[in-house]
């Protein structure tokens, strides 16, 4: 009986999670005259939607813009989060707790409240319609949570190692590079993928800060492709598949670390 319930709930959850992926993938291979009929398996397969999407829409431009924004967000997040986490989790200094709370407070902050002033800030800096404006704001939203995630990884390294290094005459920077960084590689992978995914999926700021077609990223570009052509489901489903694939590939490589990192960060609240 108990086992039956487990199987039933398990099957339900698997269908709930997997079916939308399956359905969009299958639909994207159906020719235009079949795509609107609800067959679970297509009568004929076609790649025409993918070809048209790449040839007739700015999909590829949007893709390159997204890769740039997500890549840069990843680099800058890692560059500012590692020193910050090292400082907060390895040193005692006045204002340490306050800073940690300040950083945490900012990651629960309503993004929409910041839309107007951030638009003004970017317009003052001349960065409206520049991909850098998205990099800047994505780092803002990725970095605080990333600091929180690093906590579990830093706590896992015994402080005796740092002390041993300093007795051996290593300065704090040398300790960071020779002792800490090699040991927190999974943590770095975790925050890197988190920053990448956050930037890859960000929509709200991209819809306000970027208005030129040539600078659009995938999320807002897909929205435009959907809206512009009174929902061409062939293009829309093909675009959805192509947008998800990079995330899945990334996840296949570092997903384990990512979930472990989330978990170890989560129980250390």
């Amino acid at each position: 009986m108990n086992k039956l319930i487990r199987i039933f709930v398990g099957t339900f959850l698997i269908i709930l999670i997997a079916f939308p992926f399956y359905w969009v993938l299958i639909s994207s291979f159906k020719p235009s005259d079949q795509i609107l009929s609800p067959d679970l398996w297509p009568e004929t397969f076609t790649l025409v939607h993918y070809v048209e999407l790449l040839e007739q829409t700015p999909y590829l431009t949007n893709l390159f813009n997204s890769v740039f924004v997500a890549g840069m967000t990843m680099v800058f997040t890692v560059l500012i989060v590692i020193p910050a986490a090292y400082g907060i989790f390895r040193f005692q200094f006045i204002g340490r707790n306050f800073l940690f709370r300040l950083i945490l407070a900012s990651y629960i902050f309503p993004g929409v409240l910041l839309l107007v002033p951030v638009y003004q800030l970017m317009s003052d800096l001349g960065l409206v319609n520049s991909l850098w404006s998205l990099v800047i704001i994505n780092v803002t939203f990725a970095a605080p949570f990333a600091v929180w995630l690093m906590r579990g990884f830093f706590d896992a390294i015994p402080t005796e190692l740092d002390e041993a290094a300093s007795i051996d005459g290593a300065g704090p920077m040398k300790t960071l590079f020779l002792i800490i960084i090699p040991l927190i590689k999974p943590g770095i992978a975790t925050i890197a993928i988190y920053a990448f995914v956050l930037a890859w999926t960000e929509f709200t700021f991209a819809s306000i800060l970027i208005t030129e077609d040539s600078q659009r990223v995938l999320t807002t570009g897909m929205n435009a492709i959907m809206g512009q052509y009174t929902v061409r489901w062939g293009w829309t489903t093909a675009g959805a598949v192509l947008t998800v694939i990079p995330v899945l590939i990334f996840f296949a490589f570092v997903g384990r670390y990512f979930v472990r990192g989330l978990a170890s960060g989560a129980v250390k609240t």
Partner: protein
Amino acid sequence: MNADNSTVKASKAASEPMPSKPKWMIWKTIFPYLLVFPIVFWILVTIFIPLISVVRESFYDTGFAGSAGEFIGLTNYINVLTSSAFWSSSGRSLIWVLGNGLLQTVLAFSIALLLNNNRKISNIARTWMVIPWIVPTIVVAIFWQWIFNGSYGILNAILINTGLIDSSINFLGNPSLTLPIIIFINSWNWFPFLAVVLLAALANIPEELYEASAVDGANRIQTFRFITIPSIAPVTFAIGLVGTLWMFNIFDLIWVLTEGGPAGYSTTLPVQIYQTAFRQYAVGSASAMSVITALILVIFATLFIKFAAPKE
């Protein structure tokens, strides 16, 4: 080899005292600040300085973002607080937060209890169940818009074929269905995160506690009530606070699916702020709304911490 090395270094450190101690002390004092400076600077410039400008704009009749308005005192606040649209949006935000919290808790708890064991399949599933959370919002919207489509969505086809309904339902275009359906879609997007956190908390409960309660003859419900729930209380408290604020702030999914429609029936506060600022071009009014919203959230967080914090 190793031992040799360390003795050499140790003796070296002993024979040479720390050079110029005060300088070294100063360096040690400022060093942590240098480490945290970049992130603090970044956050100050992109969050806290803009925040100040929101407060300022809320006292001006600014129209377009970027244009200059005139000082009008509290007029924006009075207009917002006396508009029925603001209060309906607040009500919908409340439904949104409660609905998401409930549904995600149910889904996340089911999956967490199912996977909280050491079977190989559970280990793999624990990683891959996260997938809905990392899918871009726009794709989540496409997935479910395609399934829920009012004319040729598969859900309508299934419901009609099984004889449950006679004609297609326009799920997202129906005033009474639109918000619950977006809540469902958003929960699909977010429950994996909650599940990861719950699984981590469950895995952290010492096995001895369960053994002890078994020795005491506790049944499964008692074990769940008196061992599991109290053990994960600190984590659920933290995630309850952060998650509520995160859910409250969701904007993009609703915007992509319905833009707050039909006729405002899915307009939560963040959607209304966006519409006011970027569709009605009333930045002053939107800023006042933002300030009021931020205050509501601060009050909520304070009360939550005061009354829901687990007893030590």
